[in-house]
């Protein structure tokens, strides 16, 4: 093997923050359903702690042997609204606490799947789960929640949109961190290894290993070598880099799957930033030639980046899935934070960016007194972008009680910190009050 290639890999890991962001084990809980919730929770605890018993150990082994950092080990489960619906419980706190306890027993970083899928209406379990969300998130540490309110196939459930605005608001009053652990989706995917929106869909196998790669720093470093060259060269460079990064994810996933005796699902080809210097998606866009992210041209650069990442990664692994693209969370990306603070990046531009990237309005702190209807309307806008463009979109906004534009909030760790961003002051309440369902778009009828 050529020395240059060996050194390239060494450099990517040592200097450019290349890592495997997560090895996530999907565990189906369909066989844990029981009309007695105590019995169901026992089965859930036993299944998770049995299946994921060695997840952390194997992750650490791979990290040591291959010298590649594996940042998180996570578990996703079947949406709890489906599992708990058989019980007569009036809230699902008990289930959330069981997930939290199981996650702590396994030593994992997060567990996702306190979720409900209501894009076409509610079943009993959905209603109870959504009502339980604020307390469930406030009283647990590692549980992540998601609610899918829309899809290209079924339209947008505006009753759920309305309710989720209120849930976000109520949860924020209990604890500011609650909303960092909850995502509201349109077109949610069933094999997402990333948090907070990961859950294990009903069509997934009993257990499955999914891997999420990262590497914004590697892409930026590669682009530094093609300064001034045409966009074709930029796209080509990103593709080649994404290929290499994804190959590593594929390798780590197949080794983990073999050692754990669990089938390998997908690699999620995402560029997931962290607040660390040199691990920023915003800085890739700036390297392409924007003085600061958020200025004119940002959407075009991001669209190209997102597409090139997919093209490069798709041949590098056997199955691609999850969200696969560039993430643009504000608080988790040093470049995004700088741009918001400088006034270059605002909510409207972020919304435009979500039309061409892999997710949506992510980790955005807003004033604590933002009305619930305004939050609902933000969710509706994002869901509409997802529904019409046949893509996943999501909202993870964080109202911070007692804080206003100009203030800051600290989340810590991978979640970073964020300046409070201004929201539009004109009311959307009358539209949100209508409820009902926005019908599926015409291009969803393909049969």
């Amino acid at each position, binding site marked *: *093997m*050529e*020395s240059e*290639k*060996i*050194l*390239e*890999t*060494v450099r990517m890991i*040592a200097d450019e923050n290349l890592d495997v962001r997560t090895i996530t084990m999907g565990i189906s809980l369909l066989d844990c359903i029981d009309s007695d919730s105590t019995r169901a929770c026992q089965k859930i605890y036993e299944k998770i702690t049995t299946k994921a018993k060695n997840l952390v150990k194997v992750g650490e*082994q791979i990290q*040591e*042997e*291959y*010298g*590649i950092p594996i940042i998180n080990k996570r578990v996703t489960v079947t949406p709890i609204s489906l599992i708990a619906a058989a019980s007569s419980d009036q809230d699902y706190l008990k289930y959330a606490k069981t997930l939290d306890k199981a996650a702590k027993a396994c030593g994992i970083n997060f567990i996702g799947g306190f979720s409900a899928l209501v894009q076409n209406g509610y079943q009993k379990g959905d209603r109870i789960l959504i009502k339980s969300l604020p307390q469930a998130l406030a009283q647990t540490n590692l549980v992540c929640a998601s609610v899918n309110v829309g899809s290209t196939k079924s339209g947008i459930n505006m009753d759920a949109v309305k309710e989720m605005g209120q849930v976000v608001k109520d949860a924020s009053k209990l604890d500011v961190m609650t909303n960092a652990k909850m995502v509201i989706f349109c077109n949610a995917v069933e094999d997402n290894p990333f948090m907070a929106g990961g859950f294990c869909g009903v069509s997934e196998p009993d257990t499955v290993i999914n891997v999420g790669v990262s590497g914004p720093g590697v892409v930026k470093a590669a682009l530094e070598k093609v300064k001034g060259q045409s966009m074709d060269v930029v796209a080509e460079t990103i593709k080649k880099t994404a290929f*290499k990064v994804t*190959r*590593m994810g*594929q*390798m780590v996933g197949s080794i983990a799957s073999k050692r754990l005796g669990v089938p390998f699902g997908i690699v999620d080809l995402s560029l997931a930033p962290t607040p660390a210097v040199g691990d920023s998606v915003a800085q890739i866009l700036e390297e392409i030639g924007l003085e600061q992210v958020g200025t004119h041209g940002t959407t075009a650069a991001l669209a190209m980046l997102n597409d090139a990442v997919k093209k490069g990664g798709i041949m590098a692994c056997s199955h691609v899935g999850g969200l696969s693209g560039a993430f643009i969370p504000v608080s988790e990306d040093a470049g995004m934070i700088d741009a918001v603070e400088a006034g270059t990046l605002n909510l409207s531009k972020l919304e435009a960016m979500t039309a061409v990237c892999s997710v949506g309005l992510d980790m955005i702190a807003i004033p604590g007194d933002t009305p619930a209807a305004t939050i609902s309307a933000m969710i509706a806008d994002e869901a509409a972008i997802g529904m019409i463009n046949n893509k996943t979109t999501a909202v993870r906004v964080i109202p911070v009680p007692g804080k206003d534009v100009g203030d800051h909030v600290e989340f810590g760790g991978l979640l970073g910190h964020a300046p409070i961003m201004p929201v539009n002051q004109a009311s959307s309440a009358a539209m949100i009050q209508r409820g009902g369902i926005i019908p599926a778009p015409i291009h969803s009828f393909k049969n």
Partner: protein
Amino acid sequence: MKAVLTTVGQDQVGIIAGVSQYLAENKVNILDLSQTIMDGYFTMMMMVEVPDEGKEFSQIAQDLTALGTKLGVEIRIRNAEIYQAMHQL
């Protein structure tokens, strides 16, 4: 297990001696070796065979990192598969 050992740092007397002495003591066989000065830095790459019995791989990796600190260079050992996975179809 086949592994790649990389040593990068300021050139000085005794780097190769130090590394190969440690490898010999731990029955790690050197299969291939290349060495060059790149951007002013001493850069050495070794393909080695780590025996399945004997010291744990993680222990060897830790020992080598410590040896690197002593010699003033950065020493890393990784399962060779990672390089093949990333650069070869």
